[in-house]
């Protein structure tokens, strides 16, 4: 898969994982596992990128005697998710066209 496309997909996947409420690193990885395998290193990079882009916020809270970071989606993150859904519709239209042309041959 094209790196740029993959990067975009991973960003959106992480945003989708925290769409319904704040979450933490391990839970995000677990939730995504049935759909997409993601290493801790990749997740860290994506979380940092999304935080830098203002699409999520981070807070550190004590959990069971240790610190854990919680990630919450921002309005900008939700906008990105909505944009992705619109973009994907277009991609699917093109995909159907490509597949149809391919089948004719």
């Amino acid at each position, binding site marked *: 898969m094209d790196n740029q496309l993959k990067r975009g997909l991973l960003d959106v996947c992480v945003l989708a994982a925290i769409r319904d409420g704040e979450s933490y690193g391990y839970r995000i990885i677990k939730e995504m596992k049935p759909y997409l395998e993601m290493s801790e290193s990749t997740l860290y*990079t994506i979380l940092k*990128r999304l935080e830098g882009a203002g699409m999520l916020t981070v807070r550190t809270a004590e959990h*069971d005697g240790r610190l854990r*970071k919680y990630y919450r989606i921002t309005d900008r993150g939700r906008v990105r998710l909505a944009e992705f859904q619109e973009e994907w519709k277009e991609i699917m239209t093109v995909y159907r066209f490509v597949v149809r042309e391919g089948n004719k041959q």
Partner: protein
Amino acid sequence: MTKKEFLSALSRGLSKLPRKEREERVNFYAEMIDDRIEEGMPEPDAVASVGTVEGTVSQILAERPAVAEEPPRKSGGGRVGVILLLLLGFPIWFPILLTFFITVASLLFSLFVTLWAVEISFAAGAVGGVGTFFVLLATGQAAAAFFTLGGALVSGGLAILLLFGAIAATKALWRGISAVCRMIAGLFRRKEKNND
């Protein structure tokens, strides 16, 4: 491998990274391992599921976004040079600048005074002419009286015409002075901001 061993080895492997980033990344892995242990996974398994130290280090270094190089610091040399040049050249540029400003101000002021002087002269000529007209008429010198009245009317007309010009010139001069004052004040304000 225990969690502690893994994290120490990871920290050593990431020694090239800035301290803050290294700590953050190690803490991230510590949290990941702790969450697995909390879920009931034995510590060695939790550590193993995160991956090997070597693999993790190489993946982090490969995935890490290239850190933008710090822009080269602006050397203060140029600025110091300009200030030095300004200080040394002060005896030359200041009198020239002052002379220029005084000349321009004098020219503008002369123009202003001349314009209003001419305006007042024409107006006075008109008023005086009308007065003389009545005096001459009363003394029976009708021809001279009407000639004077004609002159007075011409003078009055010119005074009215010139009045518009004088008012416009005064306004323009005022705007010009205000603009120059604002410009000078702006220079100082910018300097203050720069000093902050």
